[in-house]
């Protein structure tokens, strides 16, 4: 469970996040939705500690991230996996080496065991055939899957995804969504996903917050969202469904 309390963040005097309060549940796919520029990425970066919040608290199962020492933060980060918008695979390494990287860095296991674990992760995302290819040699959907495999290599408790569907066709998007959803359930992770894809919302929106211009406007789930009375949210849904 990840809790965000009274989180605010501004850049050069411009407020990007304003007093956000949210609760992201374990074993569920938690969605942060909102229009482009609403502050989703900034919120996610604050939650994982890549940016320092201006004020407020972030709690990982009761452990407060804000104010953690470098050492503690490094340890907490080994419990996190992240899927970046552009996949962020290391382009000097093959798919298999990418998945092995976190294991090589932190796992105490032998090389054979690490390799076995990496292959297992690749199998989970159905990418065994691409193990020896470089990121430049595979498609966007495969890159996303490889990045998911890398993110789950160290069996994280928390998984973060920034626009997992950007640049993918609807069918592949669905596949990626389902993959993230089933991994979340199987490993009982706390998964937080940034998205503006209404298909994802309808598909895996177990717990949703809607952000508009840095303000949390609405929270609920995929069943409640269709009957919401929030005007901004309805606008967002309408605009998204017209695309």
């Amino acid at each position, binding site marked *: 469970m990840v809790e965000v309390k009274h989180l605010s963040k501004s850049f050069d005097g411009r407020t990007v996040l304003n007093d956000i309060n949210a609760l992201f549940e374990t074993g569920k796919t938690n969605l942060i939705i909102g229009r482009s520029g609403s502050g989703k990425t900034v919120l996610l970066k604050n939650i994982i500690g890549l940016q320092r919040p201006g004020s407020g608290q972030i709690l990982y199962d009761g452990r407060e991230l804000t104010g953690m020492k470098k050492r503690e933060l490094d340890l907490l980060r080994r419990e996190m996996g992240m899927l970046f918008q552009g996949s962020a695979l290391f382009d000097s390494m093959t798919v298999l080496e990418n998945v092995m990287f*976190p294991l090589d*860095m932190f796992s105490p296991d032998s090389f054979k065991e690490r390799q076995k674990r990496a292959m297992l992760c690749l199998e989970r995302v159905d990418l065994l055939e691409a193990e020896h290819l470089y990121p430049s040699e595979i498609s966007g959907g495969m890159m996303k899957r490889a990045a998911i495999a890398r993110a789950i290599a160290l069996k994280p408790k928390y998984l973060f995804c920034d626009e997992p569907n950007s640049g993918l066709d609807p069918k592949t998007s669905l596949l990626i969504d389902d993959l993230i959803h089933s991994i979340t359930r199987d490993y009982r992770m706390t998964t937080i996903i940034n998205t503006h894809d209404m298909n994802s919302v309808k598909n895996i929106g177990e717990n949703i917050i809607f952000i508009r211009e840095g303000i949390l406007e609405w929270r609920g789930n995929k069943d409640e969202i269709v009957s919401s009375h929030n005007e901004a949210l309805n606008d967002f849904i309408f605009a998204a469904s017209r695309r």
Partner: protein
Amino acid sequence: MNEALHRMGEYTLLMAKVISIPNRWSMFFKQLIKEIYKLGADSLWIVIIISIFIGTVIAIQISLNISSPLIPKFTIGYTTREIILLEFSSSIMCLILAGKVGSNIASEIGTMRVTEQIDAMEIMGVNSANFLILPKILGLMIFIPVLVIFSMFTGILGGIAASYADINGMTPSSFEYGMQFYFNSFYIGYSIIKSVVYAFIIASIASYFGYNVKGGALEVGKASTNAVVMSSIMILMADVVMTHLMLT
């Protein structure tokens, strides 16, 4: 001025992050070998080719310019050697390498920055600066001196080749005599020490510019140009300082 101070502060902070114990030695050595191999494969031939040609040209030009009968012909060999050992193979070669290797490093790290690969490392709890930059700095500090030695060797060979062309009375035997005349072996050490410092300058400054890129592909290009300009200026300044410290 403010900008310069800000950059110096940023650079110092980055170096503090770079210089720490790697958390996996096996990964560190793997990276180090990779960097040395890349540097060697990329730069050895260009160093050899440039050195041979410049060595040849220096010998020809000196021989053309020394026409007075009062100056003995072995001066040509002597001067060629001094230029190559003292300045060309270390400083000029490193300026060339700053252009080639420095821009490479800056754009490699800069691309990793804008495509969030560095963030991906940080989020895993990896010290990305240490993992990416330390092997580059050490790799260059180990292998650039080797390239400099190659450059000295092939530069001199170029000079010798020129001496066979019989320009303005230059002969191989006088050239050879001149090359051994009044030889101070400290000059080789001096050049190698200089090149180690230049290697640090090239790798650390290029890494700094790459690591701090903000934006996209366009900024990566700018960062790599800036890296080359800044490291070249720093090399020239370090040259003056070190020459003053070691030779006067």
